[in-house]
Protein backbone atom coordinates (compact mmCIF):
# COMPACT_ATOMS: atom_id res chain seq x y z
CA UNK A 1 0.00 0.00 0.00
CA UNK A 2 2.57 2.48 -1.04
CA UNK A 3 1.07 5.96 -1.20
CA UNK A 4 0.52 7.54 -4.55
CA UNK A 5 3.29 9.83 -5.71
CA UNK A 6 2.43 13.31 -4.50
CA UNK A 7 1.26 15.76 -7.07
CA UNK A 8 3.89 18.38 -7.93
CA UNK A 9 1.50 21.04 -6.64
CA UNK A 10 1.49 19.40 -3.20
CA UNK A 11 5.27 19.56 -3.10
CA UNK A 12 5.23 23.18 -4.22
CA UNK A 13 3.80 24.43 -0.95
CA UNK A 14 6.99 23.12 0.66
CA UNK A 15 9.37 24.98 -1.60
CA UNK A 16 9.70 27.85 0.85
CA UNK A 17 11.19 27.31 4.31
CA UNK A 18 8.13 28.74 6.05
CA UNK A 19 5.78 26.29 4.32
CA UNK A 20 8.17 23.42 4.90
CA UNK A 21 8.49 24.18 8.61
CA UNK A 22 4.69 24.38 8.83
CA UNK A 23 4.44 21.00 7.16
CA UNK A 24 6.92 19.49 9.59
CA UNK A 25 5.03 20.95 12.52
CA UNK A 26 1.83 19.44 11.13
CA UNK A 27 3.65 16.11 11.01
CA UNK A 28 3.17 15.72 7.28
CA UNK A 29 5.56 13.00 6.05
CA UNK A 30 5.63 14.71 2.64
CA UNK A 31 7.33 17.71 4.26
CA UNK A 32 10.07 15.44 5.53
CA UNK A 33 10.41 13.86 2.11
CA UNK A 34 10.84 17.29 0.54
CA UNK A 35 13.41 18.21 3.19
CA UNK A 36 15.30 15.00 2.50
CA UNK A 37 15.23 15.56 -1.25
CA UNK A 38 16.53 19.06 -0.71
CA UNK A 39 19.28 18.33 1.81
CA UNK A 40 19.94 14.59 1.77
CA UNK A 41 23.01 14.74 -0.49
CA UNK A 42 24.45 17.72 1.33
CA UNK A 43 23.85 16.17 4.75
CA UNK A 44 25.25 12.81 3.70
CA UNK A 45 28.26 14.54 2.12
CA UNK A 46 29.02 16.29 5.42
CA UNK A 47 28.55 13.16 7.54
CA UNK A 48 30.67 11.16 5.10
CA UNK A 49 33.41 13.80 5.12
CA UNK A 50 33.52 13.51 8.91
CA UNK A 51 33.04 9.78 9.42
CA UNK A 52 34.58 8.37 6.26
CA UNK A 53 32.20 5.45 6.05
CA UNK A 54 28.86 5.26 4.31
CA UNK A 55 26.75 3.22 6.74
CA UNK A 56 27.73 5.34 9.77
CA UNK A 57 27.16 8.52 7.77
CA UNK A 58 23.70 7.31 6.76
CA UNK A 59 22.84 6.50 10.38
CA UNK A 60 23.83 10.02 11.39
CA UNK A 61 21.72 11.64 8.65
CA UNK A 62 18.72 9.53 9.60
CA UNK A 63 19.14 10.33 13.28
CA UNK A 64 19.49 14.06 12.60
CA UNK A 65 16.41 14.20 10.38
CA UNK A 66 14.37 12.21 12.87
CA UNK A 67 15.42 14.71 15.53
CA UNK A 68 14.12 17.49 13.29
CA UNK A 69 10.90 15.53 12.84
CA UNK A 70 10.47 15.00 16.57
CA UNK A 71 11.35 18.58 17.49
CA UNK A 72 9.41 20.14 14.66
CA UNK A 73 7.32 22.19 17.05
CA UNK A 74 10.47 24.08 18.02
CA UNK A 75 11.33 25.09 14.48
CA UNK A 76 10.54 28.61 13.50
CA UNK A 77 12.17 28.90 10.14
CA UNK A 78 10.46 31.65 8.28
CA UNK A 79 13.72 33.14 7.12
CA UNK A 80 15.81 30.48 5.53
CA UNK A 81 17.49 28.88 8.50
CA UNK A 82 16.00 25.43 8.30
CA UNK A 83 18.95 24.23 6.20
CA UNK A 84 21.42 25.61 8.73
CA UNK A 85 19.60 23.93 11.59
CA UNK A 86 19.54 20.55 9.86
CA UNK A 87 23.20 20.76 8.83
CA UNK A 88 24.24 21.86 12.32
CA UNK A 89 22.46 18.83 13.75
CA UNK A 90 24.13 16.53 11.22
CA UNK A 91 27.50 18.02 12.10
CA UNK A 92 27.02 17.60 15.83
CA UNK A 93 25.77 14.05 15.56
CA UNK A 94 28.56 13.08 13.17
CA UNK A 95 31.25 14.54 15.42
CA UNK A 96 29.75 12.83 18.45
CA UNK A 97 29.71 9.52 16.56
CA UNK A 98 33.31 10.07 15.49
CA UNK A 99 34.44 10.84 19.01
CA UNK A 100 32.66 7.77 20.36
CA UNK A 101 34.36 5.71 17.62
CA UNK A 102 37.71 7.06 18.75
CA UNK A 103 36.90 6.22 22.36
CA UNK A 104 36.60 9.88 23.32
CA UNK A 105 33.80 11.54 25.21
CA UNK A 106 31.02 13.03 23.11
CA UNK A 107 31.07 16.80 23.41
CA UNK A 108 28.66 18.54 25.72
CA UNK A 109 27.79 21.30 23.30
CA UNK A 110 24.06 21.91 23.03
CA UNK A 111 22.37 22.29 19.70
CA UNK A 112 18.86 23.48 19.21
CA UNK A 113 17.02 25.69 16.86
CA UNK A 114 17.11 28.66 19.22
CA UNK A 115 20.92 28.55 19.15
CA UNK A 116 21.05 28.47 15.36
CA UNK A 117 18.47 31.21 15.23
CA UNK A 118 20.50 33.35 17.63
CA UNK A 119 23.63 32.87 15.55
CA UNK A 120 21.65 33.83 12.48
CA UNK A 121 21.40 37.61 12.63
CA UNK A 122 21.29 39.05 9.16
CA UNK A 123 24.87 38.08 8.56
CA UNK A 124 23.96 34.43 8.38
CA UNK A 125 21.32 35.20 5.78
CA UNK A 126 23.98 36.80 3.66
CA UNK A 127 26.27 33.83 4.22
CA UNK A 128 23.44 31.54 3.20
CA UNK A 129 23.00 33.49 0.01
CA UNK A 130 26.52 32.61 -0.95
CA UNK A 131 26.35 28.92 -0.16
CA UNK A 132 24.88 27.92 -3.48
CA UNK A 133 27.94 29.33 -5.20
CA UNK A 134 30.26 27.11 -3.20
CA UNK A 135 31.86 30.24 -1.80
CA UNK A 136 32.34 28.71 1.63
CA UNK A 137 34.41 25.94 0.08
CA UNK A 138 36.39 28.51 -1.86
CA UNK A 139 36.91 30.74 1.18
CA UNK A 140 38.23 27.76 3.12
CA UNK A 141 40.47 26.60 0.28
CA UNK A 142 42.00 30.04 -0.04
CA UNK A 143 43.23 30.11 3.56
CA UNK A 144 46.91 29.48 4.12
CA UNK A 145 47.53 25.85 5.07
CA UNK A 146 48.58 26.82 8.61
CA UNK A 147 45.10 28.27 9.25
CA UNK A 148 43.04 25.91 7.11
CA UNK A 149 44.38 22.74 8.70
CA UNK A 150 43.50 23.64 12.33
CA UNK A 151 40.02 24.75 11.22
CA UNK A 152 39.47 21.47 9.36
CA UNK A 153 40.74 19.50 12.35
CA UNK A 154 38.30 21.32 14.61
CA UNK A 155 35.27 21.22 12.33
CA UNK A 156 35.60 17.94 10.45
CA UNK A 157 37.59 15.91 12.95
CA UNK A 158 35.98 17.18 16.15
CA UNK A 159 39.28 17.94 17.88
CA UNK A 160 39.59 20.49 20.66
CA UNK A 161 42.18 23.26 20.54
CA UNK A 162 44.33 21.22 22.94
CA UNK A 163 44.13 18.12 20.76
CA UNK A 164 44.97 20.15 17.65
CA UNK A 165 47.98 21.69 19.39
CA UNK A 166 49.15 18.23 20.40
CA UNK A 167 48.66 16.74 16.93
CA UNK A 168 50.42 19.60 15.13
CA UNK A 169 53.12 20.08 17.77
CA UNK A 170 52.20 23.75 18.17
CA UNK A 171 51.82 25.91 21.28
CA UNK A 172 48.19 26.24 22.40
CA UNK A 173 48.27 30.02 21.93
CA UNK A 174 49.29 29.60 18.30
CA UNK A 175 46.37 27.25 17.63
CA UNK A 176 43.90 29.64 19.28
CA UNK A 177 45.05 32.55 17.18
CA UNK A 178 45.17 30.57 13.91
CA UNK A 179 41.62 29.29 14.42
CA UNK A 180 40.41 32.82 14.98
CA UNK A 181 42.43 34.42 12.20
CA UNK A 182 41.30 31.78 9.70
CA UNK A 183 37.63 32.29 10.56
CA UNK A 184 38.00 36.05 10.30
CA UNK A 185 39.52 35.76 6.85
CA UNK A 186 36.67 33.50 5.80
CA UNK A 187 34.19 36.00 7.18
CA UNK A 188 35.76 38.78 5.13
CA UNK A 189 35.79 36.61 1.99
CA UNK A 190 32.16 35.58 2.43
CA UNK A 191 31.09 39.15 3.10
CA UNK A 192 32.59 40.46 -0.10
CA UNK A 193 31.44 37.38 -2.01
CA UNK A 194 27.89 37.48 -0.73
CA UNK A 195 27.70 41.22 -1.19
CA UNK A 196 28.43 40.49 -4.80
CA UNK A 197 25.68 37.88 -4.86
CA UNK A 198 23.23 40.34 -3.35
CA UNK A 199 24.01 42.99 -5.90
CA UNK A 200 23.45 40.51 -8.68
CA UNK A 201 20.07 39.36 -7.37
Amino acid sequence: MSPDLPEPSQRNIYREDGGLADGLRRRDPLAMEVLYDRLGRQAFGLAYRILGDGPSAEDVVQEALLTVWRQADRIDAARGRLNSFVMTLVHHKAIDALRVKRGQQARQVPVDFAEVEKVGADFSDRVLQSIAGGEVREALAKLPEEQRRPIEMAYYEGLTHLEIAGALGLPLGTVKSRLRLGLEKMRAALRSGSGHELRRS
Partner: protein
Amino acid sequence: MNCDEVEELLGAYALDALPGDLWADVSAHLAGCSKHPEATELRAVAGALAFAAPEAQPSAALKSRLMDAVRADSAPPTEAPKRVGLLNRMKQLTSQRAIPYALAGALAVALIAVVLTNLDSGDSNRPGRATVSLSGEDNAAAAVYELEDGIIVVDAAGLKPLDTAHTYQLWSITSGQPSSLGLIGTAPNGEALAVVRAELKDIEFLAVTVEPAGGSIAPTTDPVLEGTA
Protein backbone atom coordinates in the same frame (compact mmCIF):
# COMPACT_ATOMS: atom_id res chain seq x y z
CA MET B 1 36.63 34.47 32.78
CA ASN B 2 37.38 38.02 31.61
CA CYS B 3 36.92 39.67 28.21
CA ASP B 4 40.54 39.12 27.13
CA GLU B 5 40.40 35.42 27.86
CA VAL B 6 37.12 35.15 25.96
CA GLU B 7 38.54 37.05 22.97
CA GLU B 8 41.47 34.66 22.86
CA LEU B 9 39.14 31.64 22.78
CA LEU B 10 36.56 32.97 20.31
CA GLY B 11 37.88 31.07 17.27
CA ALA B 12 37.95 27.76 19.12
CA TYR B 13 34.57 28.57 20.68
CA ALA B 14 32.99 29.33 17.30
CA LEU B 15 34.20 25.93 16.04
CA ASP B 16 33.07 24.10 19.20
CA ALA B 17 36.72 23.14 19.62
CA LEU B 18 36.73 23.61 23.37
CA PRO B 19 36.21 21.05 26.11
CA GLY B 20 32.61 21.26 27.38
CA ASP B 21 33.29 23.15 30.60
CA LEU B 22 35.40 25.79 28.87
CA TRP B 23 32.83 26.12 26.07
CA ALA B 24 30.13 26.68 28.69
CA ASP B 25 32.27 29.34 30.43
CA VAL B 26 32.71 31.28 27.21
CA SER B 27 29.05 30.89 26.33
CA ALA B 28 28.00 32.16 29.77
CA HIS B 29 30.30 35.18 29.45
CA LEU B 30 28.96 36.03 25.99
CA ALA B 31 25.38 35.84 27.23
CA GLY B 32 26.06 38.65 29.68
CA CYS B 33 28.59 40.79 27.82
CA SER B 34 28.05 42.96 24.78
CA LYS B 35 31.73 43.57 23.99
CA HIS B 36 32.10 40.61 21.60
CA PRO B 37 29.74 41.25 18.70
CA GLU B 38 31.99 39.27 16.34
CA ALA B 39 31.30 36.05 18.29
CA THR B 40 27.97 35.53 16.51
CA GLU B 41 29.47 36.15 13.11
CA LEU B 42 32.36 33.79 13.73
CA ARG B 43 29.89 31.11 14.78
CA ALA B 44 27.89 31.72 11.63
CA VAL B 45 31.05 31.33 9.53
CA ALA B 46 31.95 28.13 11.36
CA GLY B 47 28.39 26.89 10.87
CA ALA B 48 28.64 27.59 7.15
CA LEU B 49 31.49 25.07 6.95
CA ALA B 50 28.74 22.43 6.95
CA PHE B 51 28.08 23.45 3.35
CA ALA B 52 31.74 23.27 2.33
CA ALA B 53 31.84 19.45 2.32
CA PRO B 54 31.22 18.04 -1.15
CA GLU B 55 27.74 16.61 -1.67
CA ALA B 56 27.56 12.84 -1.90
CA GLN B 57 24.86 10.35 -2.86
CA PRO B 58 23.60 8.13 -0.03
CA SER B 59 22.13 4.71 -0.82
CA ALA B 60 18.50 4.67 -1.91
CA ALA B 61 17.75 2.61 1.21
CA LEU B 62 18.40 5.63 3.44
CA LYS B 63 15.37 7.49 2.17
CA SER B 64 13.04 4.53 2.60
CA ARG B 65 14.39 3.79 6.08
CA LEU B 66 13.93 7.42 7.06
CA MET B 67 10.42 7.67 5.65
CA ASP B 68 9.38 4.38 7.31
CA ALA B 69 10.61 5.74 10.63
CA VAL B 70 8.84 9.05 10.04
CA ARG B 71 5.54 7.37 9.23
CA ALA B 72 5.87 5.07 12.22
CA ASP B 73 6.47 8.07 14.42
CA SER B 74 3.71 10.38 13.31
CA ALA B 75 2.24 11.26 16.70
CA PRO B 76 2.22 14.94 17.71
CA PRO B 77 5.68 15.84 19.00
CA THR B 78 4.79 17.32 22.34
CA GLU B 79 1.65 15.53 23.39
CA ALA B 80 2.80 11.96 22.88
CA PRO B 81 4.02 10.27 26.01
CA LYS B 82 7.45 8.77 25.64
CA ARG B 83 7.06 5.26 24.32
CA VAL B 84 8.31 2.61 26.61
CA GLY B 85 9.42 -0.62 24.98
CA LEU B 86 7.20 -3.57 25.74
CA LEU B 87 10.00 -5.43 27.46
CA ASN B 88 10.70 -2.43 29.68
CA ARG B 89 7.03 -2.09 30.33
CA MET B 90 6.89 -5.69 31.41
CA LYS B 91 9.76 -5.11 33.82
CA GLN B 92 7.97 -2.07 35.18
CA LEU B 93 4.85 -4.11 35.62
CA THR B 94 6.51 -6.77 37.63
CA SER B 95 8.43 -4.33 39.79
CA GLN B 96 6.05 -1.42 40.10
CA ARG B 97 2.41 -2.18 39.69
CA ALA B 98 1.37 1.39 40.28
CA ILE B 99 2.79 2.85 37.07
CA PRO B 100 0.46 1.22 34.54
CA TYR B 101 -2.52 2.18 36.64
CA ALA B 102 -1.36 5.76 36.56
CA LEU B 103 -0.80 5.58 32.81
CA ALA B 104 -4.23 4.20 32.17
CA GLY B 105 -5.59 7.50 33.43
CA ALA B 106 -8.86 9.19 32.76
CA LEU B 107 -9.33 7.65 29.32
CA ALA B 108 -9.55 4.21 30.89
CA VAL B 109 -12.14 5.36 33.36
CA ALA B 110 -14.16 7.00 30.61
CA LEU B 111 -13.99 3.94 28.39
CA ILE B 112 -14.96 1.59 31.15
CA ALA B 113 -17.93 3.81 31.84
CA VAL B 114 -18.97 3.72 28.19
CA VAL B 115 -18.56 -0.02 27.95
CA LEU B 116 -20.45 -0.66 31.15
CA THR B 117 -23.24 1.58 29.96
CA ASN B 118 -23.46 -0.34 26.71
CA LEU B 119 -23.39 -3.65 28.48
CA ASP B 120 -26.10 -2.48 30.83
CA SER B 121 -28.40 -1.63 28.01
CA GLY B 122 -27.59 -4.80 26.07
CA ASP B 123 -27.73 -7.57 28.58
CA SER B 124 -28.56 -7.34 32.21
CA ASN B 125 -26.47 -10.42 32.94
CA ARG B 126 -23.22 -8.80 31.91
CA PRO B 127 -22.65 -5.91 34.28
CA GLY B 128 -20.03 -6.87 36.74
CA ARG B 129 -18.01 -8.81 34.19
CA ALA B 130 -14.40 -7.70 34.11
CA THR B 131 -13.58 -4.99 31.58
CA VAL B 132 -10.26 -3.67 30.37
CA SER B 133 -9.59 -0.65 28.24
CA LEU B 134 -6.61 -0.39 25.97
CA SER B 135 -5.36 2.90 24.66
CA GLY B 136 -2.81 3.99 22.10
CA GLU B 137 -1.74 6.93 20.03
CA ASP B 138 -3.87 8.76 17.46
CA ASN B 139 -7.10 7.94 19.31
CA ALA B 140 -6.63 4.21 18.91
CA ALA B 141 -8.48 2.48 21.70
CA ALA B 142 -10.10 -0.80 22.55
CA ALA B 143 -12.47 -2.19 25.10
CA VAL B 144 -11.92 -5.76 26.21
CA TYR B 145 -14.60 -7.55 28.15
CA GLU B 146 -15.61 -11.03 29.15
CA LEU B 147 -18.37 -12.48 27.03
CA GLU B 148 -18.62 -15.46 29.30
CA ASP B 149 -16.13 -17.31 31.44
CA GLY B 150 -13.03 -18.05 29.39
CA ILE B 151 -14.06 -15.98 26.35
CA ILE B 152 -13.15 -12.33 25.89
CA VAL B 153 -14.13 -9.83 23.25
CA VAL B 154 -11.81 -7.17 21.93
CA ASP B 155 -13.63 -4.23 20.42
CA ALA B 156 -11.12 -1.82 18.91
CA ALA B 157 -11.25 1.38 16.88
CA GLY B 158 -8.74 3.78 15.41
CA LEU B 159 -6.30 1.10 14.22
CA LYS B 160 -4.47 2.04 11.04
CA PRO B 161 -5.15 -0.45 8.24
CA LEU B 162 -2.03 -2.54 7.58
CA ASP B 163 -0.59 -3.85 4.35
CA THR B 164 -0.76 -7.56 3.59
CA ALA B 165 2.72 -8.17 5.00
CA HIS B 166 1.65 -7.17 8.53
CA THR B 167 -1.00 -8.01 11.06
CA TYR B 168 -2.14 -6.91 14.48
CA GLN B 169 -1.51 -9.40 17.25
CA LEU B 170 -3.04 -9.44 20.73
CA TRP B 171 -0.88 -10.39 23.69
CA SER B 172 -1.54 -11.18 27.28
CA ILE B 173 1.34 -10.55 29.62
CA THR B 174 1.47 -12.16 32.99
CA SER B 175 4.48 -12.22 35.30
CA GLY B 176 6.45 -10.59 32.50
CA GLN B 177 5.71 -13.42 30.05
CA PRO B 178 3.91 -12.47 26.83
CA SER B 179 1.67 -15.04 25.23
CA SER B 180 -0.23 -14.61 22.01
CA LEU B 181 -4.00 -14.47 22.15
CA GLY B 182 -4.21 -14.42 18.38
CA LEU B 183 -4.24 -12.18 15.36
CA ILE B 184 -6.67 -9.32 14.81
CA GLY B 185 -7.96 -8.22 11.43
CA THR B 186 -9.20 -4.67 10.90
CA ALA B 187 -11.97 -3.21 8.82
CA PRO B 188 -10.96 -0.40 6.44
CA ASN B 189 -12.40 2.13 8.92
CA GLY B 190 -9.92 0.98 11.58
CA GLU B 191 -12.42 -1.00 13.64
CA ALA B 192 -11.78 -4.53 14.77
CA LEU B 193 -13.77 -7.08 16.69
CA ALA B 194 -12.16 -10.27 17.92
CA VAL B 195 -13.41 -13.03 20.14
CA VAL B 196 -10.63 -14.78 21.99
CA ARG B 197 -10.44 -17.72 24.37
CA ALA B 198 -8.76 -16.45 27.54
CA GLU B 199 -9.39 -15.91 31.22
CA LEU B 200 -9.33 -12.19 31.81
CA LYS B 201 -8.75 -12.65 35.53
CA ASP B 202 -5.45 -14.44 34.82
CA ILE B 203 -4.07 -11.59 32.73
CA GLU B 204 -2.09 -8.68 34.15
CA PHE B 205 -1.55 -6.67 31.01
CA LEU B 206 -2.91 -6.64 27.48
CA ALA B 207 -1.19 -5.25 24.41
CA VAL B 208 -1.66 -5.12 20.65
CA THR B 209 1.41 -4.93 18.41
CA VAL B 210 2.07 -4.87 14.68
CA GLU B 211 3.76 -8.08 13.58
CA PRO B 212 4.75 -9.68 10.29
CA ALA B 213 1.85 -11.49 8.59
CA GLY B 214 1.27 -14.81 10.35
CA GLY B 215 2.19 -13.35 13.72
CA SER B 216 5.21 -13.68 15.94
CA ILE B 217 6.15 -15.92 18.84
CA ALA B 218 6.79 -12.84 21.01
CA PRO B 219 6.15 -9.11 20.41
CA THR B 220 8.71 -7.55 18.09
CA THR B 221 7.44 -3.95 18.10
CA ASP B 222 6.15 -1.45 20.64
CA PRO B 223 2.44 -1.79 21.39
CA VAL B 224 -0.05 0.30 19.44
CA LEU B 225 -2.60 -0.46 22.16
CA GLU B 226 -1.97 -1.38 25.75
CA GLY B 227 -3.72 -1.53 29.05
CA THR B 228 -3.67 -3.10 32.48
CA ALA B 229 -6.17 -5.83 33.25
